[in-house]
């Protein structure tokens, strides 16, 4: 018998007949110990579905018809007290780990509180023991001291695991996981998925795994449902769904998922001797952070360490790495929002730190940045036209007619309607807002564009459209792109050269093909193995998946900074810090294995031609 069952559920936004229907006639069932995936684009009703399943519909959401059965009983038909008792058996984990807990109370105390709310007969001491036990089970290091830490002291991945503990602490029969991996880095997301799979065995929990990413659902679930605009359009065993999608929407979803190793399109080859437009020479950035305890004293945070690389005209250069690897600091250095504490950054031969006045303004016009957050990056009360004129005014444009003509031209190029000129950015979708962002960068006719996670807030279809736009603009204006990203699939599709960063260092610097088919660093390989795809993995996660999280940049270990997580760590890694070493002419990796000419995987040469 099904443990949790939704029968023909319809949910609408309000009671009136004209109200927007969010979920339409949705049915699904979940057997004990099963993981069922639900996949759909943003605004397809995924979150409403997950909330419906746990009886958490806030007004104006209204369940019109249908029932939700838990062990055969309708949870919407029960009294509130009865439902509260049932909360012990049905749990929910959401997508925003950092906002889910009260920042003023220790994490452990909050989980204990929740446990005792649904299980009043458990003593405080027992509850505490159980929580610590579970924190250890989800691999939070030194769980008994972490129990007393505050949410701000947890990283995103650790917080998500703490929330899984929060959901599991009452030994639920059903866990609804709503997009849990979305805010996490690939390696951490892979850990969380592995954890969820283990938990179904260990605690007999069934999981409803809801996600916007099909590859992610494929990693986790055995059976998958596809939801499109509030309707379940297809249900199949996961592997069959990926191999033989029957509904057109599913086919589209599968075909839009980027291929990493089996992709057919290759990037156009670029000549090697193009002019160097941006060059980093040993650039480092060190922040001084006040120590939390005691008087005075500062910690030195070495956010970026001795980074050296060249970007040539026409390149699409990618900087990839997990959160906290120094990508954002590097972005601030490149865009001269900060000056490096040592080393140099040269733009067309000139050190950007020494630029002043007119020269600085010229540099600003040449290098522009497209920001990450489509909502925070546009001033809320400025009309779009005014917003786009602003950089031009800064650069000395005064003629109103010319300003307007230039802005309208750029708006047309990025696909914004001219009617938006006098509108606020308010009603725009995330994709439209990102176009405004791109337009704001383009009005100055720059030659270098830095994309700081520009696409990460958009869903797949919108990403594709913008990437096409970027490629068109690149050809038209001979632009140089620097993509700062954690999305390797996107990098594979558009970038010709990639730098992999870890703890402020560049670990590997290589061309696209080389990096994905013959990585020179164990960390690169770990990233590739953790990446969710619809293809067979080229690198087995069992061989190279990382445990734990990067060490704190406050105390970077001596020798190789990766040694604590590296499956291939050797004696020499303890004492000697590896430097970028040439392999195959133009590619570099900072690993002792490269110097010793030990291949990362024995059969790599045969596999590469596949």
């Amino acid at each position, binding site marked *: 018998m099904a443990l949790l069952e939704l029968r023909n559920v319809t949910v609408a936004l309000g009671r009136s007949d004209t109200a927007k229907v969010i979920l339409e006639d949705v049915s699904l069932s979940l057997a004990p110990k099963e993981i069922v995936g639900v996949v759909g684009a943003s605004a397809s009703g995924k979150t409403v579905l997950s909330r419906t399943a746990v009886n958490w519909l806030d007004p104006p959401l209204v369940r019109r018809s249908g029932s939700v059965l838990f062990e055969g009983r309708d949870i919407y038909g029960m009294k509130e007290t009865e439902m509260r008792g049932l909360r012990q058996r049905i749990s929910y984990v959401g997508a925003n780990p950092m906002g889910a807990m009260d920042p003023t109370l220790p994490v452990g105390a909050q989980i204990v509180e929740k446990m005792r709310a649904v299980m009043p007969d458990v003593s405080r001491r027992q509850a505490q023991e159980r929580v610590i036990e579970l924190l250890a089970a989800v691999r939070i290091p030194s769980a008994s001291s972490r129990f007393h830490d505050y949410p701000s002291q947890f990283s995103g991945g650790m917080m998500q695991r703490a929330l899984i503990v929060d959901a599991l602490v009452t030994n639920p029969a059903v866990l609804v996981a709503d997009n849990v991996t979305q805010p996490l880095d690939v390696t951490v997301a892979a850990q969380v998925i592995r954890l969820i799979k283990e938990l179904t065995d260990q605690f007999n929990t069934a999981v409803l795994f809801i996600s916007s990413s099909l590859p992610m659902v494929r990693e986790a679930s055995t059976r998958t449902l596809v939801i499109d605009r509030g309707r379940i359009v297809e249900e199949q065993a996961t592997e069959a769904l990926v191999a033989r999608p029957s509904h057109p929407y599913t086919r589209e979803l599968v075909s839009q998922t980027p291929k990493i190793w089996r992709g057919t399109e290759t990037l156009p080859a670029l000549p090697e001797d193009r002019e160097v437009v941006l060059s980093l020479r040993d650039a480092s950035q060190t922040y001084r952070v006040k120590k939390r305890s005691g008087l005075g004293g500062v910690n030195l945070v070495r956010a970026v360490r001795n980074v050296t690389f060249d970007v040539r005209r026409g390149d699409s250069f990618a900087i990839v790495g997990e959160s906290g690897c120094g990508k954002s600091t590097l972005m601030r250095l490149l*865009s001269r*929002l900060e000056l490096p504490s040592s080393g140099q950054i040269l733009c067309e031969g000139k050190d950007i730190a020494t630029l002043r006045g007119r020269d*600085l*303004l010229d540099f*600003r*016009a040449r290098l*522009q*940045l497209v*920001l*990450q*957050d489509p909502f*925070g*990056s*546009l*001033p*809320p*009360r*400025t*009309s779009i036209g005014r917003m786009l004129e*602003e*950089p031009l005014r*800064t*650069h000395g444009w005064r003629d109103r007619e010319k300003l307007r*003509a230039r802005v*309208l*031209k750029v*708006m*047309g*190029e990025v696909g914004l309607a*001219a*009617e938006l*000129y*006098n*509108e*606020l950015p*308010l*009603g725009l979708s995330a994709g439209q807002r990102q176009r405004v*962002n791109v337009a*704001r*960068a383009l009005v*100055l*006719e720059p030659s270098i564009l830095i994309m700081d996670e520009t696409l990460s807030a958009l869903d797949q279809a919108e990403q594709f459209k913008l990437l096409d736009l970027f490629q068109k603009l690149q050809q*038209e*204006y001979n632009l140089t792109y620097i993509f700062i990203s954690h999305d390797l699939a996107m990098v594979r599709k558009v970038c010709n050269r990639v730098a992999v960063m870890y703890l402020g260092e560049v670990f590997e610097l290589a061309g696209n093909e080389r990096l994905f088919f013959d990585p020179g660093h164990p960390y690169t390989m770990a990233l590739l193995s953790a990446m969710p795809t619809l293809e067979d993995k080229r690198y087995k996660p069992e061989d190279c998946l990382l445990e734990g999280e990067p060490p704190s940049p406050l105390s970077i270990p001596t020798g190789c900074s990766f040694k604590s997580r590296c499956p291939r760590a050797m004696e020499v890694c303890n004492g000697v810090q590896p430097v970028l070493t040439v392999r195959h002419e133009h590619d570099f990796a900072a690993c002792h294995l490269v110097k010793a000419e030990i291949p990362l995987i024995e059969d790599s040469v045969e596999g590469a031609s596949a």
Partner: protein
Amino acid sequence: MSIISIASPDSSTMLASRSLARRVFDKAVASPGFRAGAAIFIVLALATALYPELSGIDPVKMDIKARLLPPLFEGAKWSWAHPLGTDQLGRDMLVRSLVGLRYSFLIGVASVIVMLFVGCTLGTIAGYFGGRIDAVIMRLTDAQLSIPMIILAIAVLGVSRPTIPAIVLVLGMSNWPVYARMMRSVVMTERQREFVRAAQIGGSTDLRIIVTLLLPLLLPSVLFTSVLDVARMMIFESTLGFLGLGVQPPTPTFGNIIADGRKYLLNAWWIATMPGLFLGLTLTSINLMGAALERARDTVHAGGE
């Protein structure tokens, strides 16, 4: 670099859509609250500007025979010559109130402008630049806050003569720390936003970011609270007048009219009441217009139109 136009803008649609400020204003004007407020305000403004001169009555001319006349239809002795009655020296209350309104309004608005200017400038600088500059400015506001207003007024106005500019300065200087703190906190949060970074990348200087980006975003709400302060400053001026540190008699202001009327409150209530009536009317009209503008701004900016 030459640019090939892909979509040429359609100029007819461009002209059809009105600019934001225009839309906000049109929407506000259409609301009944704004119209009522504007009507009261215009009547009062015309009356203060024209009536004292047109009627030819001198606000300081005494007429002992006609002293303590009540306003219209009150008691037995009222007269059409003095619609709001007369005070203890037989001066016409209507003219005195209107002239008093001139001075009080002038002092109220001017001192709020001083206050806003000093407070917002210092607050914005402190919030935007932070660090040592912030520490110095904030200690300065603490120092300012620790001096009671009345003591400051006595010290300054007692030494120099209590002229109108001096009063405006004292009132303005005693209240700016509130605005400094308010601006500092909002500027601090706004300057972390991504669009500030975007402007920096665009080459904007700090001054440009503050003036073109932050102030237009933050000032409207500050201005709205400051309208209430106009009333507060008018009342403070009355307090000073009451202590004898305000505008000196015989020039009528609300402060000294009320101070005079206090002695006759039992047998001639109108002397102390009439200035209050005008004060109330003025502030109601300003607030009605302000509220309508604020509402219009919110609906337009929330996508209501």
